[in-house]
């Protein structure tokens, strides 16, 4: 069966209909985890497995706030391997290269199903080679909490890496050896998993601020280290110096100004990449020049937005994840830097923050003539990322903008059809690249506003032709038809399938 973006949907999965179809359905909520009065403090992962009687076939979840410095998922995986548990379902919010041990578990049949929002590195390789016996399901940051709260993704045990835990079993992410700031991606796991384990390397008497409430916690595991600070947050996120990236960013800021989005009360979100930060930098200059004050910036927060908020350019920062040291510092000390759960960030049924965004700046590995965007695979079908908040913010924001080079490594980025649909074209409004700007024809309002613009407005077909006139026609690839997983849209429907390499 094919879905509404004409992609194959395997049997047993619901096909994607449209990005607003969730509005036709009721929110489903299972009961929150029963409040627990007994918290056990343990010092060895083996004791946790014994105490909770973790068995083959169960679903285990993790968050990715410790990013490429995370030790907790690996610690659990080593114990799974030692016990040779089989048929586990892993549900981490993201999988990084540092989680390479999971590749062994998949090859060995210890883990046979995976749900995640983002995936790259060795685990992506083995899944792409077909070693996962069950299915890989790629969720969105908003889709995951929806899936957990509705009972579609029941979690038996949530292992929550927690930079600091107090003696009562409450947790906080902003301080400790492995401080990472907001723990937004872990909240649904905390509230709905059958058993919750906080894993920490910093046990304190008491906490001034609490993100993880002890009432949901069953076990606190105290270990020497939960992560490598070098891999958790980058020292400083920096604006690109690449002239193409700067040109794209400059045009994007001018475009935002021309369509009237840079105004008092504006809200915005960008990624943490160099070009995204350059957009923020140019927007900052316009805001300062015109004396504009925005309402909030959201998402993964970087030091750049911290600085903008300190300068009075935004009232608040709404943060699901801190990307750098400055953001962690601000999260601890700035009352206007507010944490939020992934559900509040992007769950379509939780009146999410993304619905209040004026503009979001997003990337793309491919975009097609229908404005469908791929951030999940490369052009060979290899999994190199995932939606994260891409589909969520693209749908929620009033204007969604893709910024990307028109040509990367001699390959045109605009395709007839993207290899994998991550975000549907109906939610993508504008493409900005170094050789022009394409507006989605359905946004007649934007085309009207820009009809006298001096910016290089073109159709996406014109940009496609321009790119191909430079690169020539790329050779068509015959990709495998063996399904290894699905890309799940935020409402739980399948927007595309993933294939063996």
């Amino acid at each position: 069966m094919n879905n509404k973006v004409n992609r194959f949907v395997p049997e047993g999965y619901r096909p994607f209909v449209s990005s607003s179809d969730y509005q036709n359905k009721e929110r489903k909520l299972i009961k929150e985890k029963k409040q627990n009065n007994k918290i056990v403090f343990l010092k060895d992962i083996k004791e946790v497995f014994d105490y909770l009687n973790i068995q083959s076939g169960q679903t285990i979840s993790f968050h990715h706030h410790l990013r490429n410095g995370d030790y907790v998922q690996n610690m659990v995986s080593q114990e799974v391997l030692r016990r040779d548990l089989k048929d586990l379902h892993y549900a981490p919010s993201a999988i990084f290269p540092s989680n390479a041990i999971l590749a062994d578990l998949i090859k060995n049949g210890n883990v046979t199903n995976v749900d995640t929002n983002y995936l790259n590195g060795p685990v992506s390789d083995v899944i792409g080679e077909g070693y996962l016996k069950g299915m890989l399901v790629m969720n969105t940051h908003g889709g995951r909490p929806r899936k957990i709260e509705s009972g579609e993704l029941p979690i038996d045990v949530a292992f929550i890496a927690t930079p600091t835990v107090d003696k009562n079993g409450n947790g906080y992410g902003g301080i400790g050896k492995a401080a990472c700031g907001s723990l937004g991606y872990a909240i649904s796991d905390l509230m709905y998993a059958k058993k919750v384990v906080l894993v920490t390397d910093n046990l304190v008497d008491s906490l001034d601020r609490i993100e993880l409430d002890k009432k949901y916690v069953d076990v606190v595991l105290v270990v020497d280290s939960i992560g490598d600070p070098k891999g958790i947050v980058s020292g400083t996120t920096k604006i690109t110096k690449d002239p193409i990236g700067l040109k794209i960013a400059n045009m994007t800021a001018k475009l935002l100004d021309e369509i009237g989005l840079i105004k008092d009360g504006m809200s915005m979100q960008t990624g943490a990449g160099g070009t995204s930060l350059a957009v923020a930098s140019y927007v900052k200059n316009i805001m300062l020049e015109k004396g504009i004050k925005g309402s909030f910036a959201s998402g993964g927060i970087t030091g750049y937005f911290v600085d903008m908020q300190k300068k009075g350019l935004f009232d608040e920062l709404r943060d699901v994840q801190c990307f750098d040291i400055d953001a962690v510092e601000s999260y601890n000390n700035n009352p206007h830097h507010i944490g939020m759960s992934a559900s509040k960030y992007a769950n379509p049924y939780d009146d999410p923050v993304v619905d209040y965004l004026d503009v979001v700046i997003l990337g793309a590995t491919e975009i097609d003539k229908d404005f469908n965007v791929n951030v999940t695979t490369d052009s060979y079908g290899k999994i190199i990322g995932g939606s994260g908040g891409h589909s969520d913010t693209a749908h929620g924001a009033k204007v969604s903008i893709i910024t990307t080079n028109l040509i990367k490594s001699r390959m045109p980025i605009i395709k007839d059809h993207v290899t994998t649909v991550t975000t549907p074209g109906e939610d993508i409004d504008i493409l900005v690249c170094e050789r022009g700007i394409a507006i989605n024809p359905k946004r007649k309002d934007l085309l009207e506003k820009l009809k006298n613009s001096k910016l290089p407005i073109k159709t996406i077909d014109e940009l496609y032709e321009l790119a191909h006139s430079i690169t020539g026609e790329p050779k068509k690839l015959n990709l495998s038809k063996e399904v290894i997983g699905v890309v799940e849209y935020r409402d739980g429907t399948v927007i595309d399938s993933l294939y063996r390499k």
Partner: protein
Amino acid sequence: MRRSLLFIPGNNPAMLQNADVFGSDAVIFDLEDAVNVLQKDSARNLMHCYLETHPNQPMEVVVRINGLDTDYYQKDLELIVSDNIDSIMLPKARVVYLNQLDEMLTKIEKEKKMKKHIKVLPIIELAVSVLEVEEIVKCPRVDGVLLGAEDLTSDMEVTRTKAGVEIEYPRARIAMACKAYQIDAIDTPFTDVNDYEGLLKDALHAQELGMNAKSAIHPNQLDTINKVFLPTEKQITWALRVRQATKEASEKGLGVFSLDGKMVDKPVMERAEKILMKAEKFGAI
């Protein structure tokens, strides 16, 4: 009329691919200093293929050939000169070389039955060339002169500094000569690509001395250069008012009149028109 000229190495495919997107008025594809001796042939061939496959560029296409004191310039000219380029940049320019170059270009244009008449941008980068500049600007095909401060200061055996005191005289002399013959006076590149404040200061000073354009060695320098060498909004507003007042005065039969308490006569009117011509060319009005 140019504001900015961006140098791009002729042997770098990735940079060639994007040469037209940065908004410089001209791109100088370099076959000289940016290309190692061992890569002269491959760079020349790459440039040839690039020019053949990228005709009709939105900016002026300039190729810096190897000097007429080298073994490479003839092959450069034979392969590169075509209707796909606009200008040749000649390093270490002398009057004698410019006359030779004119002869060679005339021959190639005839042989290839070209539609274009190739212009020449000499680089003043020898002390003797500074002394010859009044003659150089009169040479056939020359419609702009570039100061090459790095080689010039080496020839002068003086230290190159950011303040640029050592190039004050050649800057002023080149600007004067170019303005006398109404061709472009193009300033030397600012070589610290991370110092944008320094670049701004340097470009403003060159402009004060009469330079009307500046070369760049990195695309990120172009915004600053294009802004400095474009009339300001205040200048454009003033010039538009002068144009309107001139029209009204002319209708009354007046050749000289007063605007904001200041006399407006022919030189002032011409200055206003020059500002407006530049602003119109570069899309500022």
